[in-house]
């Protein structure tokens, strides 16, 4: 056990670890938002509610169908992504050509509906979701105690984030996506079904939110307001990182989680607001965000 700046290493690394985990969720969620914004130019306010739906779907699958965590990791993003596809196809498509603010308002309304419905059945309480057996317990590393599940969260979200980045920036499908964002008409002329691509992209982004929800279920209580609690912080993360950039969203998410964790050690009262304070500073210095490409 050693001390850094007067803080024992256990405390420091413990909070850093928690910060890295929060950062994993920030990264996953802002990644989903960035993907959706990149393709549709819509700020998906429903993202928080879809994250919550992911957690609840995992909970319900376990409660009523006995389907456990590992299967849920695969099933839930597909289910939640499917609801996203329905939303895009029947609601968001009608807003094509209108001011983008209407998209924000529509997704805001959807978020209220989803949260309200869940709140009605589950109150504002949290439901417990048991940790998968393979990941319980932890290792004492000497300078800190590392619970296994939390280590898994970090590793898996890194894989998902970089996998998504790779798919979008380095594969052919990704290049179609990026081209369709720049110039949909031209891409259509090449025979690519752009509306379907857009719908699937929204579904994919929403699926990412659902995946984050499943991963959150064992460590954060599954409660109807878990989405709204986190979504506004994720918005700030996205503004800091810059809306258009996938890598920016991932890096900023992890980085800000770590910053938040550090703040909890050295200046706990400010920990909930530090991300917003950083947002203000970044906006004043570099309005398009750290990695943004301008609007």
């Amino acid at each position, binding site marked *: 056990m050693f001390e850094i700046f007067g803080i024992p290493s256990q405390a420091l690394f413990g909070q850093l670890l928690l910060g890295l985990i929060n950062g994993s969720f920030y990264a996953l969620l802002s990644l989903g938002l960035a993907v959706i914004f990149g393709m549709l130019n819509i700020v998906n306010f429903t993202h928080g509610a879809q994250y919550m739906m992911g957690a609840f779907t995992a909970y319900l699958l376990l409660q009523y169908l006995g389907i456990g965590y590992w299967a849920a990791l695969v099933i839930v993003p597909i289910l939640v992504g499917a609801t996203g596809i329905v939303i895009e196809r029947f609601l968001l498509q009608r807003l094509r050509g209108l001011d983008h603010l209407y998209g924000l308002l*529509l997704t805001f309304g959807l978020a209220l509906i989803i949260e309200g419905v869940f*709140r009605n059945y589950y109150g504002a309480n949290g439901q417990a979701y048991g940790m998968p057996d393979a990941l319980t317990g932890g290792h004492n590393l000497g300078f800190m105690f590392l619970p296994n599940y939390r280590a898994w969260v970090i590793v898996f979200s890194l894989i998902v984030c970089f996998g998504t980045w790779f798919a979008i920036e380095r594969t052919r499908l990704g290049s179609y996506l990026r081209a369709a964002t720049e110039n949909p008409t031209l891409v259509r002329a090449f025979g690519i079904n752009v509306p379907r691509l857009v719908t699937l992209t929204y579904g994919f982004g929403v699926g990412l939110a659902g995946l984050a929800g499943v991963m959150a279920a064992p460590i954060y209580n599954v409660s109807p307001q878990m989405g709204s609690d986190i979504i506004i912080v994720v918005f*700030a993360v*996205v503004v800091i990182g810059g809306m258009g950039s996938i890598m920016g969203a991932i890096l900023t998410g992890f980085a800000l989680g770590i910053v938040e964790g550090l703040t909890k050690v050295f200046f706990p009262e400010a920990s*909930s607001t530090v991300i917003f*304070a950083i947002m203000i500073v970044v906006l004043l210095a570099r309005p398009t965000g750290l990695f943004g490409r301008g609007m």
Partner: protein
Amino acid sequence: MASLAGVPTVNRQREGARSEAVAAGILVAFLAAAPFVLYPVFVMKALCFALFACAFNLLIGYVGLLSFGHALYFGWASYLAAYAAQSWAMPPGLAIMIGTATAAVLGIIAGLIAIRRQGIYFAMITLALAQMMYLVALRAKLTGGEDGIQLPSRRRLFGVFDLNNEMTMYAFVVIVVLAALFLIYRIINSPFGEVLKAIRENEQRSISLGYSTDRYKLVAFVLSASLAGLAGSLKAMVFQLASLTDVHWTMSGEVVLMTLVGGLGTIFGPVVGAFFIVAMENYLAPFGQWVLVIQGVIFVACVLTFRRGIVGELAHWLRVKL
């Protein structure tokens, strides 16, 4: 950039004045009769929200800026007004002024940060700023956190009028709100207001005409924040309580909803929208969380099919300006 509200503009001004006067007359008559038919506290609550929504509408309807964090000014003004009344023993008039001034200061600071961006970015920044101040309110000693600030009883206005008398309080609220609405009306129909509308229609062109649009937007922002603060301070005096609900993001969402339902870019739209939503919430209160769901449904429905709002549709149908 397409404008958010498709309202008739400059050429209908003269006919507009007449229809607006008629609508104003109806509103005054309604407010005169209301306390004898409806629960006065309900009407006062609706009036405070009507002012809040009109202040919000100043930005979205006439400048084209969607502020998604307007609860910041509403809530913090109510906190400061309540705090002034409680800890500094200020009479209600002064407390309200302090609250409004607080909102103005917050408006200047937030405006300077947010005006740099437009459209969606602007909305997200205002939301994030409001959330940050919500988190501050959660922990600050000043605001009482979860418990809020409680005022023991209403005091005398200007040392003369006893606000514990429900009708006196009601009259006071009506006068203040109507005066503020009139002020908004004058702002919109002034040369300053015309420039704002020009900025909403085409900011690039306004810049090329020589207007420093950022400055105009900032002034509009501060005006909107101050009037929202006035509404918040008034509400604190009516209910003798300032709480976290007033700074929460759902409050920001509610004022957007009221304006959307009532009619963006109309004078009376937000008033109608406020009454509608407050009445709906009152009526549906026994149904608990369904209120949230219904608010969401109204949002979605308005955005998809009812973008003009109640008053907007009425104005469109009658081909007048409201």
